[in-house]
């Protein structure tokens, strides 16, 4: 029976009276050298002995009152040495303020320390992570709570250590405080200096915060006075004490073992070449929620080792963390809210070093080849597309004009936009407005243009660079957008039109695949103007004819919301019946007496064997059922199904459906191993196409070299048809240049992908006709003349064919790209500010008269201009002669 538990031989009221008495005498005993616990226990034993000797079966309140009246309150003599003297006034004052001091040092400051760590993460940011597991934080919270309870009991004159629970709480709290004192040991000296030399300043407060666990541990040891109780009670109390300490140790070991296991999983997951890499990913997927992982990788202290042993530095840099996060969760860090990590882990003060070190004050991706992270001060303020359609040549030309604004008050910003081009299109015009004047680009080898751009960026002058960034996409980057200013660029795209079997031909538009625009405002709609001499449709209706500058043309003038741009349903269409006409075009950039001829041949109609590659990343999970249905009902011949994952696997089509349950879609697998497996499966099964159904995959990993090696050694590649289920960036497209044969189905969203076989009459191919473009000397008799964009598309095809050949010398392709003023895998476009800059970089801006425009000048108009110019020059030279 514990000493303050009701005794069966006492009435409740007697017990209550006893408790009141012990509380009263305890306060008196505290100022004495006597052991309060022991005295109370002795008095109780005395009382029980009296009761026994008097044969009182039940001690009533009256009995208790009588006994206690006789016992009286302790008459405490002062210590013998000073028994006749009063304590000095200073000691008296100290005794008065001591309880308050105890509350401040043992409760208030530890609470402040915990709050500071929870909110501002000072210890984590400036020293080391103290609470890598939430359990450790909760354990630390017990310390001030236990101290508050103990001090409250002292104030209420209740003995603080009477039961096993009291003992256990004290040893638990002391053990925890000792552990955190040990962790903070290297800081203790500084803390002591701050606390005692500058105690009236902030430094003093910080010092006290550092010392607070040591104070609590010391108090836990010093203030502990075991009660003198009966041996069984003493044994129980001792057991309680040991239990408290052991519980603290066990919880601590559990928390740190969890952290250690998490770290081991992350370490394995981050090592791509490690044989257990896939195991690491799977373990990390089991062990971390998205919020926990974002806290570990991007939160405060994430750049430090969270374990109490080993160095404090982390082994992951910024890019590795982003990749790892994506691989484990399947999410791009842009998709989550950095700083929101859930209960007790919220980064209230936005102290993420990942944000601070990488994104505040500078842009780590500036001048690089990646779009990188959005800049919150960069806005797209205007977007317009002007286009012309040439039905006779099955061509279109669109110019996309974008205006960026820098809302930052101090820093210059670089805008970067990854622009998705229509299939097999080419950038044929690049313009930057400098001081309100449009300046055309110079074209050169990709490396030369980038070098020129970077040299000018370093000097904060105005350049614009457009380079090929994979199959059918270019990266446009311009710098500097001055604080509060705007920057205007224009990208011209020449694109072929491909009629389908039903005659419907989409007029494709470029769209943004990714950008670093991060200003928190809705993106502006794109003002679209598309004109054509021939009728075309928009939203199922033929676009009306208008008279523009005395000419009757069909004009589509509309606004397309940003999110709809590039969507298949928002594209205008052209109806073509039968075989498209043969066409030809000439250009001054072609050899003398030659022209480009385009004819059409029917696309093969026999179903071709395919390998289906299914991305099993998180974003695909919602499509699991649809995918299974797609694979079971697809009419064309599927030779093999490759499923990405950790690791990827190749299975027969009938076994694939079992592997497509929603729970198998996890993380963001590296696409390269699964693509390699699909290529090998295609080679094994003699499949000529790979249908790749996938979500975004924003990163490339070290494994890309294996893919490039495969492509170099096996030039006869199957065609890879990409079917993205969401808009955005698919980094592997950067590699999908010749010799890869890569194209995008052009239809986004899985429902459309599933409809694909129906749309194509049971055949998955996209086109009913394939164009043949050739350099010839004579125009075809039945052909019609068309725009010189045909020449640009021929040049683009020729360059891609050349690049597919196993050769390291691509100088002919570079020369062709520069001559035709195109952005290709080997050539880029750059706009610089001055002629001196062009000269320094051995580049030459193009003649503004040689770039495409909308509307294109008629041939007769060009001749008139030419004749007028020659006449004027002759007149001028004769005038000078006279």
């Amino acid at each position, binding site marked *: 029976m514990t000493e303050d538990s009701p005794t069966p031989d006492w009435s409740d009221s007697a017990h209550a009276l006893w408790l009141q008495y012990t509380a009263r005498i305890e306060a008196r005993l505290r100022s004495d050298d006597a052991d309060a616990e022991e005295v109370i226990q002795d*008095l109780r*034993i*005395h009382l029980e002995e009296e009761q026994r000797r008097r044969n009182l079966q039940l001690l009533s309140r009256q009995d208790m009152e009588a006994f206690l009246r006789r016992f009286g309150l*302790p008459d405490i003599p002062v210590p013998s040495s000073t028994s006749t003297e009063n304590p000095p006034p200073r000691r008296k004052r100290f005794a008065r303020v001591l309880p308050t001091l105890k509350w401040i040092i043992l409760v208030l400051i530890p609470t402040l320390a915990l709050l500071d760590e929870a909110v501002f993460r000072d210890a984590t940011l400036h020293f080391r992570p103290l609470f890598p597991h939430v359990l450790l934080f909760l354990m630390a919270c017990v310390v001030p709570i236990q101290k508050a309870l103990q001090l409250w009991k002292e104030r209420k004159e209740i003995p603080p250590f009477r039961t096993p629970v009291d003992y256990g709480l004290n040893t638990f709290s002391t053990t925890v405080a000792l552990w955190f004192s040990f962790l903070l040991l290297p800081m203790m000296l500084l803390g002591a200096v701050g606390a005692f030399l500058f105690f009236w300043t902030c430094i003093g407060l910080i010092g006290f915060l550092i010392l607070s666990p040591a104070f609590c541990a010391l108090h836990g040891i010093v203030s502990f006075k075991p009660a003198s109780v009966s041996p069984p009670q003493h044994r129980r109390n001792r057991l309680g004490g040991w239990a408290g300490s052991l519980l603290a140790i066990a919880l601590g070991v559990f928390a740190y073992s969890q952290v250690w296991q998490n770290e081991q999983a992350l370490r394995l997951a981050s090592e791509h070449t490690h044989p257990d890499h896939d195991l690491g990913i799977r373990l990390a997927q089991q062990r971390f929620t998205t919020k926990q992982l974002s806290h570990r990788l991007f939160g405060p202290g994430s750049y430090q080792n969270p374990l109490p042993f080993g160095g404090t530095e982390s082994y992951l840099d910024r890019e590795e963390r982003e990749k790892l996060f994506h691989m484990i969760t399947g999410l791009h860090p842009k998709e989550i809210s950095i700083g929101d990590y859930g209960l007790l882990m919220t980064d209230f003060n936005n102290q993420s070093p990942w944000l601070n070190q990488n994104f505040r004050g500078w842009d780590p991706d500036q001048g690089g080849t990646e779009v990188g992270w959005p800049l919150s001060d960069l806005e797209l303020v205007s977007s317009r597309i002007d286009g012309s359609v040439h039905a006779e040549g099955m061509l279109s030309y669109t110019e996309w004009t974008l205006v960026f604004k820098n809302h930052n008050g101090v820093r210059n910003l670089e805008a970067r936009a990854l622009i998705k081009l229509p299939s097999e299109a080419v950038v044929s015009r690049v313009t930057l407005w400098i001081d309100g004047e449009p300046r055309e680009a110079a074209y050169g080898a990709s490396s030369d243009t980038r070098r020129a751009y970077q040299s000018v960026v370093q000097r904060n002058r105005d350049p614009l660079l457009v380079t090929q960034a994979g199959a059918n996409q270019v990266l446009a980057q311009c710098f500097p957008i001055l604080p509060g200013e705007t920057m205007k660029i224009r990208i011209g795209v020449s694109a072929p039109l491909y009629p389908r079997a039903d005659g419907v031909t989409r007029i494709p538009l470029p769209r943004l695949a990714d950008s670093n625009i991060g200003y928190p405002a809705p993106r502006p709609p794109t003002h679209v103007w598309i004109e054509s001499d021939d009728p075309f449709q928009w939203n199922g209706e033929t676009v009306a004819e208008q008279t523009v500058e005395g000419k009757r043309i069909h004009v589509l003038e509309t606004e397309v919301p940003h999110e709809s741009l590039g969507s298949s349903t928002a594209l205008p269409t052209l109806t073509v019946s039968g075989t498209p006409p043969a066409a030809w075009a000439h250009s001054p950039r072609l050899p003398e007496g030659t022209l480009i001829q385009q004819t059409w041949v029917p696309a093969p109609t026999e179903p071709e064997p395919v390998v289906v590659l299914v991305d099993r990343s998180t974003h695909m999970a919602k499509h699991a059922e649809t995918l299974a249905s797609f694979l079971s009902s697809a009419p064309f011949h599927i030779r093999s199904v490759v499923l990405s994952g950790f690791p990827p696997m190749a299975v027969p089509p009938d076994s694939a459906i079992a592997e497509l349950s929603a729970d198998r879609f996890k993380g963001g697998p590296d696409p390269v191993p699964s693509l390699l497996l699909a290529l090998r499966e295609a080679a094994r099964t003699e499949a000529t196409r790979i249908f790749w159904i996938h979500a975004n995959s924003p990163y490339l990993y070290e494994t890309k070299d294996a893919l490039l090696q495969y492509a170099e050694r096996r030039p006869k590649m199957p065609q890879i048809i990409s079917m993205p289920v969401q808009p955005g960036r698919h980094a592997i497209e950067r590699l999908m240049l010749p010799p890869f044969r890569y194209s995008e189905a052009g239809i986004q969203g899985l429902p459309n992908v599933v409809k694909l076989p129906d749309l194509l009459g049971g055949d998955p191919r996209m086109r009913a006709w394939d164009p043949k473009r050739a350099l010839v000397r004579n125009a075809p008799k039945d052909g019609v003349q068309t725009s010189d964009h045909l020449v640009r598309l021929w040049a683009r095809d020729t360059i891609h064919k050349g690049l597919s050949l196993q050769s390291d010398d691509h100088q002919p392709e570079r020369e062709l790209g520069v001559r035709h003023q195109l952005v290709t895998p080997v050539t880029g476009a750059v706009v610089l500010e001055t002629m001196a800059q062009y000269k320094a970089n051995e580049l030459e801006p193009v003649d503004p008269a040689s770039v495409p425009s909308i509307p294109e000048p008629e041939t007769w108009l060009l001749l008139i201009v030419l004749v007028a110019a020659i006449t004027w020059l002759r007149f001028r030279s004769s005038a000078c002669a006279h």
Partner: protein
Amino acid sequence: MGKSESEPFDNWTVQARKGLLELWVLRSLSHGECYAYDLVKALTEKGGLGVSEGTLYPLLSRLRVLGWVETRLVESAEGPARKYYRLSKEGTRQLNRMNQYWRQLLSTLEITDND
């Protein structure tokens, strides 16, 4: 309200009792080990000192903390464990010093009386 005539005297007796209390307890234990209840009972029932359990137990505890007395617990079939007190070596030494001082004090008082 003014102080009664006996109040200074009462205060003096209280102080005198307090001063003698430790000597008295130590002398009681000088005869041998004693059960706490019996010891306290004997002391409280003796006239003259007017002490209660509420004063004696703290005193015993203080003496134990000082190391002048030693305790041991003995299980009892009849009730709670019994605590026994006995003088330690230090307690015996202190008792001898107190006795010596007490005798000096008494002789001083006798000399003064004779004067």
